[in-house]
């Protein structure tokens, strides 16, 4: 599994290092789904800080992963969207609607813990 997944209490943290192929994203989705079920995970943080491009394919894939995890009982937070990447996504008309976002890992975990953003 090319994406490292860490367990932090009731949460899982997946750190995507670089652009993932179709197959790799499918594998990530399957792995997270399986682990969420196994650990009865409430929340998953997906860190995209290392991704320098989030195109329509990647965005769609993230949304699919979040939907699948939601059906499995876990909330997903996307963290680490780079400023340039956020700008590009918005210019294109892409959004992560329905997905929670936070600036970084700490913020993401706080969001999952409190159900709202940390102070």
């Amino acid at each position: 599994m090319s994406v490292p997944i860490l367990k932090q209490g009731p949460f899982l943290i997946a750190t995507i290092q670089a652009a993932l192929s179709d197959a790799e994203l499918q594998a990530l989705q399957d792995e997270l789904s399986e682990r969420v079920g196994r650990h009865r995970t409430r929340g998953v943080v997906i860190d995209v800080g290392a991704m320098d491009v989030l195109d329509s394919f990647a965005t769609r894939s993230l949304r699919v992963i979040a939907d699948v995890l939601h059906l499995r009982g876990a909330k997903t937070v996307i963290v680490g969207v780079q400023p340039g990447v956020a700008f590009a996504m918005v210019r294109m008309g892409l959004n992560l609607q329905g997905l929670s976002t936070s600036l970084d890992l700490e913020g993401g975990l706080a969001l999952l813990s409190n159900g709202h953003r940390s102070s």
Partner: protein
Amino acid sequence: MPDQASRARIAEQEEGFKALWAVYDQHYDDVINQLMQRVAALPELAALLSAMSPEELAAQRDRGKERLRSAIEEGHWDDYFAASKADGAKYARAGLSFTAWTPLLFEFRIAVTERLLEAYRDEPESLRQSLAALNTLGDVAFAVLGQAYLEEKERVIDDQHSAIRELATPILSVRPGLLILPLIGVIDSQRAAQITEDLLQGIVEHRARAVVIDITGVPAVDSMVANHLIQTAEAAGLMGAEVFVSGVSTANALTLVRIGLDPRRLNTVGDLQSAIEYADRVLLGDLNGHAAATAAEPAR
């Protein structure tokens, strides 16, 4: 500098200029004093001249007299008008308004005309010629000075515009997690993109979770600005920060409604204080920021 037509006009009136100078030379200091009294009633100009010592003022007066003499008697008009041009530029650089210095030229004509009428009371031909020369002098000096003033003023304004454009986007970090971005002036597409970039970078640097963009200082909010605000808000959202736009005047609000802005795409609030209050609630996390701004407010 005077154009061909003006130079021709001056050349034709050699006699007239000599008649003019004969009188003006005699009364030069008086005329200047009269002008100075007029200046005292023109606050902008008075401020400019008060910066000079009496010696400097006297020296300036003497130089001016010599320049005019040299022009009329020896034909050195270029030097004379070069000084007019310099004056025009100086007034523009000093920030004088157009009406600050024009009364001075009018006063000049009046002062010299009075003395010409007195001196050539019994010499109608000399009177006619000298008055005509005075008119020419006044017209050409006005045109040269005015042109220099306008050109310098445009240059000053261009410089100011460049300076405004080059100003770094003012991003204020008022408390942990909260950024305030006061937008001022006309925002063109290029500046808008720069502002968005700077703000997103600021969100990373300050780890902001709430941003208030105040548009009180933006004169006209059109669809381009509105779209940029929406894009900025959405991009900030992707980075976990909630954006509130404050300072939306009634006029701007009407414009936004008319261009079809979907109110769900932008959290707008009337004033900065309210926006900061909403932002605080986001930071304290007691309400989802978006819901707070768009939920119906009970009457205060």
